[in-house]
């Protein structure tokens, strides 16, 4: 085999000449030994460093003969088959394997790597010795982090405010939508609109407007007329001042005592006497005695309760005569069906909400014992309750029929009334009819008088007889249960752990119905105190009172321009 060995000789800067040599043999040996085909006088080469064999098709096989290996195409290797054009580097010599040419079977070009090139190669092969020389960087991760977070965290959600429908698309994609801005769970009641921030946040960079709230909460009452009660805190207050959302499911109604006390501590001075409400700052320490709504009636029986400060000496007028002590006897009462022990709940039953007590029902609660019979000869017949005209109709009709039918076994009655009429008897004569009806009218009046004045009604009711003895009976109006404290919300249901007697003390021994059995503030203060109390239930204003209570104003329709914000 003929090898062409072409040596590149550099003369000066740009002048290059070639020196060709021929080597005969299968193998091209490379090394520092003098018998090598390519002799390299370089300490970095071993005596027999490597060999190159032409394997045909312009390919060469390079093999290292020592354990240090040989650098082919920049990589240390021990044995490799390469195409022509491959470069072997050894010390300061570069061998380039060439295509076979002319009548040569193989060819190699030998050139010298000059000093500056060697230095460049070795520095390019040098591994990085500090982190700044490696692939990691501070600059591009900073840029990527900054841009990605700004784009996804701010710009994309913000774009939903100007691009309609984008938010909906984003919410169904893994990309962040405005939900990524949500600082906290919205209130349970607002979950239904939680996916649409703009329902409340209508304008970017503006606080939530009251109009956003009143678009749903249209009938919510105002607290007071801000024009009449000219307090900055009232006039400037937004809905959001008190009602802050995005604080989870703990509710948006603020319980803070300061919310009320800040103004009500000196409300008269603040409003320049426009308000006559007493100054209040704390339930436990600074709250006036309750004003109890005592029942009362106008001349034509219209219910006109009278609000008065509670006091132990206060008497009430329910319009009813009732002796609690008599009814609450421990050993019971004689009832038609045997002895019966009454307790509070027999008569005082809560309404469906459990807040107030239902009105007393004569039919359900009294009638078992207090029956409204009027005639011993017809003990099953009773007059209706609570309807004075119906009582007299009933009596008139009952006795008219008795008189005309006859057979009424009362010795005081005329014979025609006592006489039983048989079938086939002739009808009553005109004279007899007049006589029977006259008896009936007298008997009905007598029965009515007995019922109203001595037997039935008068037992419990005040009967006014001045209206006349012929049916003009007047029963005084009655109000037994009702709302005694109209400005406060009290619920019996929330106080079920207490016994009736705990608050309505003295009921069991009350002999007169005008005893006021409704407790005052001291009773409440046994358990309740203000927000900063210790050892008692911390009850802020909102526990009993409503804020949105103005009877005439609603939030969405302010009565005055001052409220129009």
């Amino acid at each position: 085999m003929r090898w062409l060995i072409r040596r590149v000789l550099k003369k000066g800067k740009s002048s290059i000449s070639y020196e060709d040599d021929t080597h005969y043999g299968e193998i091209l040996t490379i090394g520092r030994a003098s018998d090598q085909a390519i002799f390299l006088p370089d300490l970095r080469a071993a005596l027999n460093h490597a060999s190159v064999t032409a394997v045909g098709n312009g390919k060469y096989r390079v093999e290292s003969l020592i354990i240090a290996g040989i650098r082919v195409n920049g990589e240390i290797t021990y044995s490799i088959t390469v195409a022509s054009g491959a470069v072997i580097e050894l010390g300061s010599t570069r061998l380039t394997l060439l295509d076979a040419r002319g009548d040569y079977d193989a060819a190699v070009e030998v050139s010298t790597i000059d000093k500056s090139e060697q230095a460049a190669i070795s520095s390019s092969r040098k591994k990085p010795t500090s982190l700044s020389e490696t692939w990691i960087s501070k600059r591009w991760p900073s840029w990527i982090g900054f841009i990605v977070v700004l784009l996804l965290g701010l710009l994309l959600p913000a774009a939903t405010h100007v691009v309609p429908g984008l938010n909906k698309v984003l919410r169904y994609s893994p990309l962040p939508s405005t939900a990524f801005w949500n600082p906290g769970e919205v209130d349970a009641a607002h979950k239904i609109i939680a996916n649409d921030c703009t329902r409340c946040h209508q304008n970017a960079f503006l606080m939530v407007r009251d109009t956003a709230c009143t678009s749903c909460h249209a009938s919510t009452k105002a607290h007071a007329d801000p024009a009449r009660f000219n307090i900055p805190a009232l006039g400037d207050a937004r809905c959001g001042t008190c009602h802050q959302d995005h604080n989870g499911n703990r509710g948006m109604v603020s319980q803070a005592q300061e919310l009320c006390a800040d103004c009500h501590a000196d409300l008269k001075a603040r409003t320049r006497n426009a308000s006559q409400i007493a100054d209040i700052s704390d339930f436990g320490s600074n709250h006036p005695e309750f004003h109890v709504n005592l029942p009362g009636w106008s001349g034509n029986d219209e219910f006109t309760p009278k609000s008065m400060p509670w006091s132990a000496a206060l008497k009430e007028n329910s319009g009813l005569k009732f002796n609690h002590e008599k009814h609450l006897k421990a050993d019971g009462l004689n009832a038609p069906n045997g002895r019966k022990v009454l307790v509070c709940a027999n008569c005082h039953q809560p309404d469906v909400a459990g807040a107030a007590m239902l009105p007393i029902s004569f039919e359900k609660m009294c009638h078992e014992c207090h029956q409204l019979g009027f005639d011993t000869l017809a003990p099953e017949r009773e007059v209706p309750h609570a309807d004075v005209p119906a009582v007299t109709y009933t009596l008139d009709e009952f006795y008219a029929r008795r008189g005309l039918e006859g057979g009424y076994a009362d010795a005081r009655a005329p014979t025609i009334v006592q006489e039983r009429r048989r079938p086939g008897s002739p009808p009553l004569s005109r004279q007899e009819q007049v006589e029977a009806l006259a008896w009936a009218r007298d008997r009905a009046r007598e029965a009515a008088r007995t019922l109203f004045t001595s037997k039935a009604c008068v037992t419990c009711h005040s009967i006014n007889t001045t209206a006349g003895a012929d049916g003009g009976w007047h029963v005084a109006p009655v109000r037994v249960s009702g709302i005694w404290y109209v400005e406060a919300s009290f619920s019996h249901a929330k106080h079920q752990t207490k016994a009736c007697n705990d608050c309505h003390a003295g009921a069991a021994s009350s002999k007169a119905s005008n005893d006021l059995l409704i407790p005052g503030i001291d009773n409440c203060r046994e358990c309740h105190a203000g927000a900063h109390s210790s050892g008692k239930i911390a009850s802020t204003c909102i526990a009993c009172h409503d804020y949105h209570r103005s009877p005439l104003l609603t939030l969405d329709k302010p009565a005055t321009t001052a409220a129009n914000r």
Partner: protein
Amino acid sequence: MHDSILTHARSRYLWISLALSAISIALYLWHDPAVAPNGGTWLGYTLGTIAALLIVWLMLFGIRKRSYSTTLGSTRGWLSAHIYLGTTLILLALLHCGFQFGWNLHTLTLVLMLIVIFSGFFGVYAYLRYPTLMTRNRESATRDAMLEEISEIDQNALALADGIAPEIHAVVLRSIENTRLGGGVWTQLRARDGSDIAIARIRAAIEKRETQAGAAPPALQAGQTIIAMVDFLAGGADDKQSEALRKLIDMLSRKRALATRVARDIQYQAVMEIWLYIHVPLSVTLLAALIGHIISVFFYW
């Protein structure tokens, strides 16, 4: 007393930070908002403003440490303040948010901030520990001097080995090839000089050659240079050769020690720098999150 970055100016910034923390905690405990504590109360806005300004100021440290001409305090003082006030930031941010967290941009901001601060803690540890280790390791030489010495030893060893036997020359050649200091991030951090990788590569190459040639395994075992030479010594060499070989072994041992020290030097330097590759990019990312956080809460006020 030695004035470290932690005790600079009699720990002035430690006391400032403690005072700031104490005031913040006291205000937080005293503050009784109508709703749960959050970033939207007056205290929330106050703490948030302070924390945001602090973040911006802490980031200015990156500029301050590069401006050598400034008269605005020493870099050491700035670093001391950077560390203590940066630590205080954890408390300020937690009080600012009222310990409310969620899957949102606001908590992302907090998390980024915490990662930046805790990576900074590692930096403090590294700055306090590694300079001493580095000085001790270098034994008052510089890395360049050590590298120079290594390359000198290589030249001498090659000349010496050539006078002994071709095998020894080959072994020394290989040793030079194997001594590759530095490398990728992981290699630098683990203080490897690359010889293990080189040995593995040699093994793989030998195995490849064996399987291709189908020949029996050669006597040459890919082991450490020094062990290979001891084998040669035991194999019977004349006195002159033995002496030269001992000299060569001394030379290569010295080189190996030097290489190990250089590798360790690279490792210490890498450890002292690696945390910055988290600290700096994430602090810039944090800045974007902070901008987003502030704008978004006022966007939907």
